């Protein structure tokens, strides 16, 4: 027997945004853990609309784990949309638990991040510290989420059911340049678990990826660090082009110049969370993070 009551239709992205505005206004003021990525850029822009610049603060936790170009892009977006920004140095690399690169490395990184950002928000009397975690992220392998939870960080996008697609849709509607930006996890995600995270290794990866971008490679891109070998993952629509001999040699030269002795192009192309599979953290077919 079926009921006559119609099933509730799922909320549209626009409806979710209205709820987000209400949620933010109920808080009164928020500080946002801000990387300039798709999620945190969207959240910061909605927060400025809902609370004004006086009620919003985007906090950048700066360290060697993220490429310098990302911070420049993050600051540009904030400036363009009137989001106040403050940069706070973080030093996860000096934590041996993080530097050893265990499968829960992100927990130690995020613990350091929130430990540094919370006092800054409290000192300014800000009601809530929030992050850009979305509903899709909840299904991922994300040990960093535990650190956020332990320190009382709120995740309104996840709470209100925003998927990544919702955030991209609303970002586009708002004219945010981040709407189609590829995901940009930290550089340490390019190192297989168990390979110690060092500034030198992060710089190798950062330089190699910057060199490949300079060649015109667009979309998702990862340079996976396997000792002296760089394994390059490209978006599927770029892969065929760069496997042609002349193009492959050009690609390899750029990566060698960045400090790797050997270069290989992954035949499956970019896969989010590929090192989670290699490290045995998740099964093939379920990789999602990094």
């Amino acid at each position: 027997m079926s009921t006559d009551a119609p099933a509730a239709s799922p909320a549209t992205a626009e409806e979710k945004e209205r709820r987000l505005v209400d949620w933010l206004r109920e808080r009164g003021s928020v500080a946002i853990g801000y990387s300039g990525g798709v999620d945190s850029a969207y959240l910061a822009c909605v927060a400025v609309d809902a609370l004004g610049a006086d009620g919003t603060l985007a906090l950048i936790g700066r360290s060697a784990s993220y490429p310098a170009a990302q911070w420049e892009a993050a600051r540009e977006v904030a400036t363009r949309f009137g989001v106040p920004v403050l940069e706070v140095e973080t030093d996860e690399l000096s934590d041996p638990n993080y530097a050893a690169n265990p499968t829960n490395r992100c927990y130690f990184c995020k613990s350091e991040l929130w430990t540094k950002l919370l006092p800054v928000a409290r000192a300014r009397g800000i009601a809530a510290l929030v992050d850009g975690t979305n509903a899709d992220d909840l299904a991922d392998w994300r040990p960093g989420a535990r650190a956020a939870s332990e320190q009382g960080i709120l995740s309104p996008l996840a709470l209100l059911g925003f998927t990544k697609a919702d955030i991209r849709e609303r970002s586009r509607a708002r004219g945010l340049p981040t709407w189609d930006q590829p995901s940009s996890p930290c550089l340490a995600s390019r190192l297989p678990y168990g390979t110690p995270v060092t500034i030198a290794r992060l710089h190798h990866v950062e330089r190699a990826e910057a060199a490949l971008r300079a060649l015109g490679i667009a979309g998702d891109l990862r340079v996976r660090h396997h000792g002296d070998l760089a394994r390059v993952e490209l978006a599927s629509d770029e892969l065929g082009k760069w496997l042609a001999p002349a193009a492959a040699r050009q690609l390899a030269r750029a990566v060698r110049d960045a400090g790797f002795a050997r270069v290989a192009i992954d035949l499956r192309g970019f896969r989010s969370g590929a090192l989670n599979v290699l490290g045995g953290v998740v099964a093939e077919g379920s990789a999602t993070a990094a």
Partner: protein
Amino acid sequence: MSAESLQAALEAIGIRAEVRQQERVALLRTPPDERALERPEVRRQAALLALEHGFMAIALEVGE
């Protein structure tokens, strides 16, 4: 996981490559005139064979 058996399986579908193992990655070195891997359907077959042989990734190593 065996580089030799993967190499034979790749050869059976027309890919000429020397296969070596690094961690759980299969690294292919091909002759200069080998162009099969530029075709997506061939790459898909190669990736499937690599998985069947216990490798978690397969990549074309690019020489000097």
